[in-house]
Every structure is written in structure tokens, then in C-alpha cells.
């Protein structure tokens, strides 16, 4: 099975070959490196930009205004904060400008903790991003979704932000990308650039197929009626693992929803599950003041207060200045498996 970063690379290849992507660019995105996480190796439209995040966003906007289809990368979302006003304008230009211009750009940014990244390679961005009206924001938690969400991001004529969970970039999925070879070693040989001199290296792309994960379509990755657990990105597989352990240990079965889309999000899926379970927990690692998960919590309370059996709750990252390098800091800053198990168990077992 492909890793998540290989899936992104294959999606970008599909995008530039069949979906009109004209430019894939950012810092170290082009050869020889092909991205600090290797997401852009071997792509024919990939190029290196100056070290200038505002220039990256502005140029992507200009390319999109002029009819191109850019995929821009901010190397880590931690370095996207100085582009916030440009992101706002990318999101509001259509509304402010009476609908004159579409802006079909994709911005991909590795996001979140899990690579021992210290203060500036561990930020989360989805709560900030959720305030950027006019954007669409997605966050995959497995390679196949990354492929399908990236293709949807490319064909959508609006600005779409693809947040890539850093901790999962090297993780393999359990489903193949359509067209991906059966042999993982063969895939690596075909599309991973060799370490060292790669001046004469050329990728051999598999015969990939079109596969879309529609925007705002959540995935129900575990099913049960003990409680509803909503997550995405790095914490999603941890929630699924926690649900599996609680099923083994306590016979409790959970609805675990991979939201996949931050905005728009799949409210129907959340509502349906909450109506079934009456118990609600949202888990993510962004800081708790103020967190996108709180918005979901607010809607659950506003719209389903009398359908709830116990108080709904969140498990979020702590409101602290950063994630420290010593793993004591990271483990005690953002949700880890034991805390997730505890939180899921608590929401399922509180007496109604």
C-alpha cells in the first residue's frame, strides 16, 4: 500500500496530467529535493520558489486569476501565519468582487504534531483555517482519502486548503490507490527518487485512475451505538484504535467519524450519529482556545440538546505557547492514545 505522501504525489501527477494543474510550487518543491516530505518528487510542473510564503500565496492567486490551476505548498503550516491576510483575500475576493473571478487554487500544508517538530513544525492550522470564509478545507487521515481529496481540491473552482497530517505522511493505508501496483517495493522503485544523485532519475508513474472523495463527505470508520466520536487527521486513527480496544475490553462499540472536511463539514453524518447515540465527543489536537471542535460542540448543543443523554465534550490540544522538543512536552500537550481511550470511555459510560 502507498504511504500518504506517495498518495499525494500520485494525485498531483494525476492532476497535472489529466486535470489541468499548471504549477506545483513552493519552497524546495521542485527538483532536486521534490519537497521536504517528498510529496512533489518527479512532477513535471513542480518548481522551486523563493523563500517567501507571501509570494507563494500571492503568485498562486495571480496564476489562478489568469486561468492557471496552481497547487502551492507552504512547507509547514507553522510558516503560513504571515500569509493570513492573503488567505483572507483569496477567500473573500469572489464575494467582495461581485463574483467576477473564480480562484481555483490548492494550498497544501503539512499540519500538526507527531514528528518531534518542536515549536515551529508542530502547529495545527485547521481552527485558524476554519475562519477563512470562502475557502474549503480538508484533512485526510489515510492515503486513499488523501488521493481522493486532492483530486477534488484540484477540480473545485474555489480555493481549497489540503492540510496534511505530518505524523501520518509515512503511514501506509489499508486500501490501494486506483491504479497503484500490488507490490509496495515496486511502487517505491517507480516513484520515489533515489537518495543521493538523482539528476538522471525519472519517475515511472503507475496507470492511475480518477478517484474523488467528495468535499463534506465524512467516513464512518467504526460503527456502534455507545457514543459518537468525531475526529480527523492525526487523531483519527488513534480514535479508531481506542474504539477497537474498548470494544475488546468492554464490549462497547462506537461510531467513529472521520470528518475529512473541516469546511464544509458533513453535518448530516454527525447529526445522524448523535441522534443514534446521544453521546458526543470531538477529538483534535489544535489548541483549545479557540478550537474548531468547539463549533461542532456548539451546534450539537444548540440543535440536539434534548437528544443528548450526557454532556457532550471535547478532547483538544492544550492552550500553551507551543509544543516543546522534549517528548514530555509533546505527550502532555496534544491528545495521545491513553487520554483518547479515557475520554471515549468516559462519554460512553457516564450514567444518563
Amino acid at each position, binding site marked *: 500500500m502507498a504511504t500518504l505522501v506517495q498518495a499525494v504525489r500520485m494525485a498531483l501527477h494525476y492532476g497535472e496530467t489529466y486535470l489541468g494543474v*499548471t*504549477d506545483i510550487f513552493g519552497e524546495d518543491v521542485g527538483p532536486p529535493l521534490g519537497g521536504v516530505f517528498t510529496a512533489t518528487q518527479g512532477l513535471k510542473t513542480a518548481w522551486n*520558489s*523563493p523563500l*517567501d510564503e*507571501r*509570494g507563494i*500565496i*500571492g*503568485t*498562486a*492567486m*495571480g*496564476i*489562478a*486569476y*489568469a*486561468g*492557471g490551476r*496552481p497547487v502551492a505548498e507552504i512547507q509547514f503550516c507553522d510558516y503560513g501565519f504571515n500569509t493570513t*491576510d*492573503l488567505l483572507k*483575500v483569496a477567500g473573500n*475576493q*469572489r*464575494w*467582495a*468582487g*461581485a*463574483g*467576477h*473571478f*473564480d480562484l*481555483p487554487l490548492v494550498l497544501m500544508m503539512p499540519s500538526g504534531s507527531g514528528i518531534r517538530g518542536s515549536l515551529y513544525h508542530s502547529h495545527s492550522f485547521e481552527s485558524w483555517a476554519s475562519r477563512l*470564509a*470562502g475557502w*474549503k478545507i480538508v484533512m485526510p487521515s489515510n492515503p486513499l482519502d488523501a488521493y481522493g481529496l486532492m483530486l*477534488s481540491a484540484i*477540480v*473545485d*473552482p*474555489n480555493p481549497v486548503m489540503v492540510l496534511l497530517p505530518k505524523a501520518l505522511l509515512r503511514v501506509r493505508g489499508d486500501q490501494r490507490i486506483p491504479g497503484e501496483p500490488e507490490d509496495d517495493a515496486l511502487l517505491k522503485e517507480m516513484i520515489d527518487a533515489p537518495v543521493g544523485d538523482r539528476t538522471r532519475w525519472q519517475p515511472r508513474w503507475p496507470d492511475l485512475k480518477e478517484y*474523488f472523495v*467528495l*468535499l*463534506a*463527505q465524512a467516513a464512518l470508520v467504526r460503527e456502534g451505538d455507545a457514543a459518537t466520536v468525531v475526529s480527523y487527521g492525526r487523531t483519527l486513527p488513534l480514535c479508531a484504535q481506542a474504539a477497537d480496544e474498548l470494544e475488546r475490553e468492554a464490549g462497547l462499540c462506537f461510531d467513529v467519524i472521520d470528518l475529512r472536511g473541516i*469546511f*464544509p*463539514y*458533513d*453535518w*448530516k453524518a454527525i447529526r445522524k450519529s448523535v441522534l443514534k447515540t446521544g453521546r458526543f465527543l470531538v477529538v483534535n489536537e489544535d489548541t483549545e482556545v479557540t478550537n474548531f471542535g468547539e463549533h461542532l460542540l456548539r*451546534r450539537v448543543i444548540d440543535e440536539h440538546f434534548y437528544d443528548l443523554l450526557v454532556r457532550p465534550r471535547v478532547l483538544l490540544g492544550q492552550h500553551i505557547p507551543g509544543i516543546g522538543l522534549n517528548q514530555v512536552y509533546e505527550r502532555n500537550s496534544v491528545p495521545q492514545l491513553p487520554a483518547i481511550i479515557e475520554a471515549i470511555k468516559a462519554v460512553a459510560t457516564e450514567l444518563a
Partner: protein
Amino acid sequence: MPSRKTSSNATNKQVPPEANGRAALADQVVTTGKDSLPADLCLHIHSIMVRTRAMEERMIKMSKSGEGYFWIGGPGEEAFNSVLGLQVKKGSGPAYDYLHFHYRNSAALVAMGMPLIDGIRQMGMTATDPHSRGRNFPGHYSCREWNVIPVSSVIEIQYTMAPGTALVQKRHGGDGITIVCGGDAGTAEGDFATCLVWSTRPGNELPILIVVENNNWGISTSACSVHGEKRIIDRGKAFGIPGDVVDGNDPVASWHAVQKAMDYCRSRRRPYMLEATVSRLYGHSSSSGALRVKNEPDCILLFEEKLLAAGILDQQMIDRVHADAQAEVDAASDQVADEPRPVPEDVYKDTYAPSKVDVVYPEDYTGLPD
């Protein structure tokens, strides 16, 4: 020295019929130093300047009468912007010029053919405002048909977008260029440097006309109190970007400076920087009172003196141009007063373009996901 060509790229040159009909004007010219322009073109430029000023002054009145709220615009920049707009290669898509304007470029839009009523509609916040549906401040234009990228209040960000449109134009071929305009104060933002860096990547130099309309002010802060550089165009030297400083209050000199700059960008497919010294005749905006400034040169008065001295206009004709412009804005503002305003149902409109892959918003935004 042979006189320079005057109109080879004048795509938007719309000479008034009455000017064409005056045989006596045919051979007359207006000169500044070694530069000259034919009399009929000068009359056309004068008309654009006066009409734009009348529109802006009406908008200022609207900001004080309650017909509008905030006003910001370009009185004092009409000379430069008129000749800029007249030489734009106007159209849609990369074969034509892309325009990354700021909020003092009204005369360029009028020169390109924008009806005055459209500026007044934006000031009046009508549903018929074609630039923003009554959402944005005046002077914040947007026009896909003419490649006018939506103007934002955020200072200088347009300089980060210019390399993107220019990159597509360079690949497209032809002579379309990107024109980016801003003030002198905004050049302190890093986005100005972004434009210099991104337009001169080796092997990827871009056809961008980088314009700085230098009015010497950033709201209440004088340029000389916060800037040490003598000429802004000198910043281009480190990047090999040629440039020129022109008296932006003189339409004859400005016409030729713009033409030279555009010719360079169109033919060399590389950036060029043009700094135009201009006036700011009503202060920063309505927030500073929008009162007439008396101690800065008025490009319209200066041009009229020149036209009078050349015998191309007499005072009676000047008065008629002003009266006609006044009548035009009177009629426009009367019409705007009766036009529909936005309704609550308009709040979501134009947030999203239709999408085949969006389950919740296949057409446009409709409120929170349901």
C-alpha cells in the same frame, strides 16, 4: 530628436467626435519638454480627468450627506491614471493586460470606458454596483471583462499577485503585460520586495509594469519622515529593473513615460518600474475629512493652463467640459438613488463558484452545512 510616437498602443483611445471634427486641431500639439501629444488626444484626456474628478467629488458629497459612508479615491491622480488607462490593452485573459490596482485608480477605469455611474453605484452601495454588489468601499473595482483584479483595502498585497498573472502571460506569448499600482507608503511593506524578487527570477523574468504613484503621504505620515531612499525606483537597481520617475501631474510627460514603460514590458517581457509623483487633493479619505487641499498642484488646472496657452481650449470650452461632467454625475446620482439596494438574501451570493465535487455547496454558499 524626432518626436516620439504617441498612440501605437492606444487601445482605449476614444477620441470624441467633436474633437475629430475640428480640422483646426488636426496639426496642433501640446508639449512638455521634448514630449508632445496631439491636441485631439489632449482634449480626450482632459475630458476623462474632469469627468473622473466630478465623479469623485460627487462621491465625497455622498459620504457627507449620508448617501454613502466611507470615501477614498484618487483626486490628484487623474492625469497619470488617465493616460495609463488609455494605453491599457483592454480585454479578458492572458493575451490582454492584467490590472492590479489600488483604490486611487478611478481615472484609469474611466479612461478604459467605465461609466461614471458605476463608481457612484459602488459609493451608493447599490445591488447594481457591478464591482462589489454594494459590499466594498468606493474605488475597489473588479472587472473580469477587463482583467481588473478585485481591489482590496489591504495595502500592497496586489504586488504579490502580479507575478502570478505575469507568469501565465509570459507562457501564453503575445504582448499582454501585468500592471500593478500602489502608493509610496505601501512600498515599505515586504510585498513590494516580493514583487521585485519574483519578477526577476533568473530565466523567469516577468512582464510587469511596477507602478508607484507617489503622493508623498501615508494617511498622516509624510514620506520623508519614514523613508530614507531618495527615489523608490532605485530599489529596482539591485534586481536589474530599469525605471523612470515622471511628473504624474503632467499628462503629456506621463503618456510618454507610460508608453515607454509599456513598450519595454511588452517587447522585452521583463519588469519595469515607473514612479509617478502625484498630488492628494482631498486628503487620505473621508476619515480625514476629505477637505480640499490647497497647497498641492492640481493636475486639471495645470493641464487647462497648458491647453489655454496652446490655444486648444478657451475658457468657455473648459467651462462646458466641466458643466457636461457635472450634468453626467447629477443624472447618474439621481438614477443611483432610485436603484435597488441589496436584500438580506444577497448576503451569501458569490461566496463560492459552483462545484461538482462539493456535496454541501454545489452552487454557492447557503449558510452553515445542513
